[in-house]
């Protein structure tokens, strides 16, 4: 069964319809395929964001009051509002062309984007991995907080020799996240408790636990301090910078690349990953096939917790080196869900989705400073991107794009040719 194009099938209603020329198929794939959809989804989201900017821009409002006498003013104001905003977004996230004379300063926003992306990718991988097993991990916040507190405690209060200190703090943090995540898997496997409830509840529990520890002297609170904040990380535990002292980009980004490759290997090349995917597809079938579903739930939540924990460690030892506070998760636990969704729960996809969202986050700060547009616009743009990418038929309908052939292959394989013959 080949899904032939509607138009060609209708034009020649003969039983032996000749297959459409191959270059037509290739064009269809380019214009209707997933890469094009992703690109158009981002464009559409930016258009919606621009609409919002225009509607709330004071200059546009002023000029629109006399729109019918001088419509040109309104259009100029609209162009300036949107153009200014997105130019600032670009300056803040990729390349600051205002400082083009000095390459080091001009490229700085790009490193900021990558720094912002680091915890998003780590946490996104954790959420995505759980998704692949059919578990919805909303517990990013709790896992980040616990991991950050564990790593932060070691980093701030347990002096150790240079390299060893960093490794121990990192490992302790990952274990913290893994335990907090593993608890969810354990409860799910042993009692059947719904993981959505358990993760939501554990988020709050972690938050209050950390708040308590941060105001308890002898626990996490800095000695001789009264505000709920830990002492600064010791020099030996801070993530070293990898792009020179003037940039914030640190070794966490390398760790995240390693984590991405690990998750890719785990899911696509290892026996455990095969079990994960089998349980995710259908736990009942997996059980019949001899896979221990309960143990899979525990294992995957331990690994997912450690991955999300990596984001927490990055926050504690990389971004909040002056001392951790209860707000250090900064919404990453929830952003990670959107990152995982945008990356379609695939490790490479999550990696690039994280970089995109990191760039939007970095650019939004510049946009607020330069144009006075609240950073919240990034949330709107992000959610539109995910919505449109999740609904390819909608994007195709909006742009009148063709629907690609599901049997299409870039390199014509033997199988596809056979399918045509046996039609």
């Amino acid at each position, binding site marked *: 069964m080949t899904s032939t194009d509607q138009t060609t099938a209708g034009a020649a209603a003969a039983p032996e319809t000749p297959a459409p020329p191959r270059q037509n198929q290739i064009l269809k794939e380019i214009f209707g395929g997933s890469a094009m959809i992703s690109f158009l989804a981002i464009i559409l989201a930016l258009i919606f964001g621009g609409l*919002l900017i225009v509607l*709330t821009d004071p200059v546009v409002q002023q000029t629109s009051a006399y729109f019918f006498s001088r419509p040109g003013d309104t259009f100029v104001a609209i162009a300036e509002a949107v153009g200014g905003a997105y130019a600032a977004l670009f300056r803040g996230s990729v390349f600051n062309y205002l400082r083009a004379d000095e390459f080091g300063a001009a490229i700085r926003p790009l490193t900021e984007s990558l720094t912002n992306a680091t915890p998003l990718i780590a946490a996104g991988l954790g959420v995505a991995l759980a998704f692949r097993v059919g578990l*919805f991990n*909303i517990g990013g916040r709790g896992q980040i907080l616990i991991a950050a507190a564990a790593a932060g405690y070691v980093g701030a209060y347990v002096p150790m020799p240079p390299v060893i200190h960093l490794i121990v703090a990192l490992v302790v943090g990952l274990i913290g996240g893994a335990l907090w995540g593993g608890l969810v898997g354990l*409860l799910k496997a*042993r*009692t*059947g*408790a*719904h993981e*959505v*409830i*358990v993760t*939501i*509840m*554990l988020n*709050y*529990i972690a938050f*209050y*636990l950390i*708040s*308590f520890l941060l105001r308890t002297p002898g626990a996490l609170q800095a000695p001789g301090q009264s505000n709920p904040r830990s002492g600064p990380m010791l020099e030996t535990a801070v993530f070293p910078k990898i792009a020179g002292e003037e940039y914030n980009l640190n070794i966490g980004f390398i760790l995240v690349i390693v984590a991405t490759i690990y998750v890719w290997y785990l899911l696509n090349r290892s026996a455990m990953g095969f079990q994960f995917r089998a349980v995710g597809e259908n736990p009942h079938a997996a059980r019949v096939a001899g896979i221990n579903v309960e143990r899979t739930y525990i294992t995957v939540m331990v690994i997912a917790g450690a991955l999300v924990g990596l984001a927490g460690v990055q926050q504690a030892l990389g971004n909040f080196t002056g001392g951790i506070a209860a707000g250090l998760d900064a919404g990453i636990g*929830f952003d990670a*869900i*959107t990152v995982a*969704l945008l990356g379609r729960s695939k490790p490479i996809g999550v990696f690039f989705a994280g970089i995109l969202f990191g760039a939007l986050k970095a650019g939004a700060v510049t946009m607020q400073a330069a144009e006075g547009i*609240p950073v*919240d*616009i*990034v*949330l*709107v*743009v*992000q*959610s*539109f991107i*995910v*919505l449109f990418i*999740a*609904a390819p*038929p*909608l994007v195709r309908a909006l742009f009148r794009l063709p629907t690609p052939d599901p049997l299409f292959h870039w390199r014509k394989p033997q199988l596809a040719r056979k399918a045509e013959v046996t039609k």
Partner: protein
Amino acid sequence: MIDVRTAPAPGAQVAGSLAVRSWKAPIAFTVFVVAAAILFIGLARDAPTTFRLSNPNDAIQLPELVLPAFATGIIATAIMATITVYAFLRAREARRIPLWVTTVFAIVFLVAFLTWAAAGSTLPMIGLLAGSLTVATPLIFGSLGGVISERVGVVNIAIEGQLLSGAFVAALVASITGNPFAGLAGAVLAGALVSTILASFSIKYLVDQIIVGVVLNVLVIGLTSFLFSTLMTADSATFNSPARLPRISIPLLADIPILGPILFQQSIIVYLMYIAVAAVWFALFKTRWGLRIRAVGEHPTAADTVGIKVRATRFWNVLLAGAIVGGGGAFFSLAAVGSFQKEMTNGAGYIALAAVIFGRWDPIRATLAALLFGFATNLQSTLSIVGSPVPSEFMLMLPYVVTIFAVAGLVGASRPPAATGKPYITS
């Protein structure tokens, strides 16, 4: 509802392999007994606790109830230990523990805990319970919407977004029109609008319902925060100073001792909540409409076969669910605070979602679960005023810890409507 634990009949001891013994409930009970022994006996506080059962200006005055903390703690721990032993015996016979036993256990623990935590001071019980009801109101609206939506087969993660959009639009409309009821109507529409996106993406475009729900939450947070920062902050007199919904004392009913001041001296939105709970329960289980909803959520193919339009039923009922939740969102800006604040729902939608699952997709049980959250939240603020020995963070944690225990130990694997989360595709 099929439950594995009810399956073994009496006399199942003969065939030991057939009997499904669940030790979860007795183990959970044991944990609470140990906690009780440590708190009420180990860390005993010897001072009487006064429970005030009526407000000073009530028509009928009830005497104050005074309980000695230490003695109450010992007696309560003994009762709870007895119940635990009973639970172990029942579990060994592979029989279920009746619900009333669990209820008694919970109430005894609660009374002992209150007596212990507030030892040496006075607890205003009316204020505590009335406040709990108030705090629980938006959670109840949220869980009702969640129940309807999931019963018809669409997972509603977007409760948070629906509540927040309701809160925002309610404040905006009520400020512009100067009429809180117009604001309430606006909130209902806002919730339905969020639901329209949820419904059209998940039913027409077959997008994963969890994805749409999560994204809608982010979208609503982004939109409301953006408009709050631009529109409302610039001119808060015009756009963010709504008139509040009035608090009404119902004549006669409000004079009933204890119940009157708790239930019938509330904001008007609380009375709407009573009506909504009763209406949703009645409609879902006693009307043709409810039967159709449940049929579509359990077995859409069968429903389609007998002529129910599956997609249309889903679409309109998801809209209805959103409208209910949105109306509940008005509570935040029109009853609780009196203006809109950034992200003011603060995760209430997720708690409502937990209440839906905790309440096993049943409107009454979900309401009770939401009330439990409301009680625990309000207990914390009451005790922090009275002054309790427990650090406030642990009191704040309590509702969430209790939920985990309840879900893991007592509820166990809960079974959602069979077709929830699955799009209905006809070939």
